[in-house]
């Protein structure tokens, strides 16, 4: 599983101390190789194909505007096949055999945890585009999705601001929801919010009658939802059919984006709040261009979502780092990373040189009748990443 393999790996100062043999990157010609590693098959393909498309779009754009340091990007794409072990193998192949300058991809935390030792032992770079449970940072990974203090904590602030005095937690039975709920319970305790119940369903669970009965009986002010995948559909259908509404008891979700709304059925989820850092509806010139380019490349019916935007942004951030370092060498890029920024579709993002996450603005959106998400609340300015929640007194003891 490799779930524990990366725990406790923190950014250290020995960047460039010459570890590993990941230095076969060839920059002598007019091109440079980069690797995309996404699940093109298996259960995660639904989500990760959209990330691949976003990465491909960014690579094509960068190439047509002159490349990176004057070199055209050659993309080598590998299929992680929704298996953490395959992710680790393919990452090793991309780094050691193909000699790519950086790898972009991964989605599940287990895929990231499986790849982490590979990137650390070869001193190579991974750009990871999905919000995750935090409590990690590695000098070999750049995290361009949200960590908990940029998504879950603002979501709790939002619920508190709206007057929620009690919560019910519903999640899938694996690492992300369990860790997220630990954080939520610590926050609730410090803020006088009562947690009226906590229920986990196995991944792929489809009968939510009992869980919805418990939610209904508990009558909390809001539900915090960390369910993943298909379970969301069964949960929201049951929720609506039990007569519960977004007005009476809102369900705040952290893993439902524009892509998923269609499958759940807009009518079952309209008005419910979700927490992310990007929505397709963001009104900025950068986002309008991103959405238009994406639709032009992949069809007018396609929607853009937070992980897609974070993947797109990650390629431009790498470009920024390389150009600042004037070198493709990993130690140089790591040194140059701090402070590199990009006018991303979500707004201005900046790389934190200490923990390799990026500053992101938190947005709470509500799902509209057209299936798109509209911003209802914003943190107003980018929130500095704090993967170990060190600046939150109530979170002391969580990172262990």
């Amino acid at each position, binding site marked *: 599983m490799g779930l524990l393999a990366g725990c406790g790996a923190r950014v250290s100062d020995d960047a460039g101390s010459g570890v590993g043999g990941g230095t076969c990157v060839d920059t002598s010609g007019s091109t440079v190789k980069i690797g995309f590693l996404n699940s093109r098959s298996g259960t995660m393909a639904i989500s990760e194909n959209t990330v691949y498309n976003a990465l491909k779009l960014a690579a094509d754009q960068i190439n047509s505007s002159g490349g990176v340091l004057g070199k055209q990007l050659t993309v080598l794409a590998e299929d992680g096949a929704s298996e953490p072990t395959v992710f680790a193998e393919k990452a090793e192949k991309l780094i050691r055999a193909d000699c790519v300058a950086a790898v972009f991809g991964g989605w599940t935390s287990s895929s990231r945890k499986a790849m982490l030792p590979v990137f650390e032992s070869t001193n190579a770079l991974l750009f990871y585009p999905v919000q995750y449970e935090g409590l990690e940072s590695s000098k070999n990974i750049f995290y361009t999705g949200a960590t908990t203090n940029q998504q879950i904590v603002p979501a709790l602030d939002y619920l508190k601001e709206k007057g929620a005095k009690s919560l019910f937690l519903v999640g899938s039975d694996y690492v992300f929801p369990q860790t997220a709920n630990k954080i939520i319970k610590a926050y609730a305790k410090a803020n006088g919010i009562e947690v009226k119940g906590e229920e986990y369903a196995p991944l792929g*669970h489809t009968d939510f009658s009992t869980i919805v009965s418990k939610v209904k009986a508990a009558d909390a002010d809001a539900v915090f939802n960390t369910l993943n995948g298909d379970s969301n559909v069964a949960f929201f259908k049951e929720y609506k059919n039990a007569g519960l509404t977004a007005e009476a008891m809102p369900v705040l979700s952290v893993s439902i984006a524009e892509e998923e709304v269609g499958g759940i059925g807009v009518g079952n989820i309209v008005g419910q709040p979700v927490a992310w850092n990007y929505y397709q509806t963001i009104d900025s010139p950068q986002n309008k261009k991103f959405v238009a380019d994406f639709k032009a490349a992949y069809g007018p019916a396609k929607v853009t979502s937070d992980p897609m935007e974070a993947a797109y942004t990650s390629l431009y951030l790498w470009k920024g780092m390389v150009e600042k370092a004037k070198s493709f060498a990993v130690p140089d890029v790591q040194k140059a990373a701090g402070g590199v920024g990009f006018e991303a579709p979500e707004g201005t993002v900046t790389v934190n040189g200490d923990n390799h996450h990026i500053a992101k603005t938190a947005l709470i959106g509500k799902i509209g009748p057209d299936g798109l998400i509209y911003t209802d609340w914003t943190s107003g300015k980018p929130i500095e990443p704090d993967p170990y929640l060190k600046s939150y007194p109530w979170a002391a003891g969580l990172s262990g």
Partner: protein
Amino acid sequence: MEILLSQLFNGLSGGSILLLAALGLALTFGQMGVINMAHGEFIMAGAYTAYVVQGVLGDAGLSLLVSLPAAFVVGGLLGLALEALLLRRMYHRPLDTLLVTFGVSLVLQQLARDVFGTAGVDVAAPGWLSGPVEVLGFAFPKTRLFILAIAVAAVVVLSVLLAFTPLGRRIRATVQNRALAETSGISTRRTDRTTFFVGSGLAGVAGVALTLMGSISANLGTAYIVDAFLVVVVGGIGQIKGAVIAAFVLGVAQSWIEYSTTASIAKVVVLALIVVFLQVRPQGIFVVRTRSLA
């Protein structure tokens, strides 16, 4: 007490979903000795039929009513094709049918992905099925009552078909003694085909019911196939009444245990209980030698 009753209803409703998924399987597995791993994909085909019908008709209420017979035919035709092309060559070789139909199930899943895309799709429930209804002071989701009604109707129709119609007599005769049935002038080939059509058609109907509950995607069938086999095995192979009892007992047990524990623990406990039960009674609740088939 209130909780007990409401969980009883949740259990019956969960049981009715299990039953719908398992009913056709009880017919094809039980009565014909075919282990049809593609049964789950016939369920998926029924669900996608509902999606297509709704896309064409638009109106959610009308499309639901049209979908039920349409999905029966789609599931039935898929079953007929499977029987005619592959299974008829391997009756009495149950393990071979398992492998072949597993392959077919993978092919059908990929086909669904290619046709309908990898993202899930949604079938909207009609207005008259949305929200809860008050029964004896409790609020029950209307969709679940509707599914319960479909399950009851399917069992009644199937029982009547087996007990009172010429086709039912032919099916029962073929199951009890194929050679004798054949010498009595019954075309067992035709009976096999019809049985498979009906059994697979029921899977299609189950698919339409499931669109009211959860997501429609290529792997919809895999979520139900194992539970459906459990119902058939626990009920006693070939026993419609066994399947009915097993489905509702498993559904109620799951919901009651889940209420006092968690969904994951309830699944484990129910599976453990099944293992213990099959140790005591390996032939299931009912045995095939009791001559009644319905």
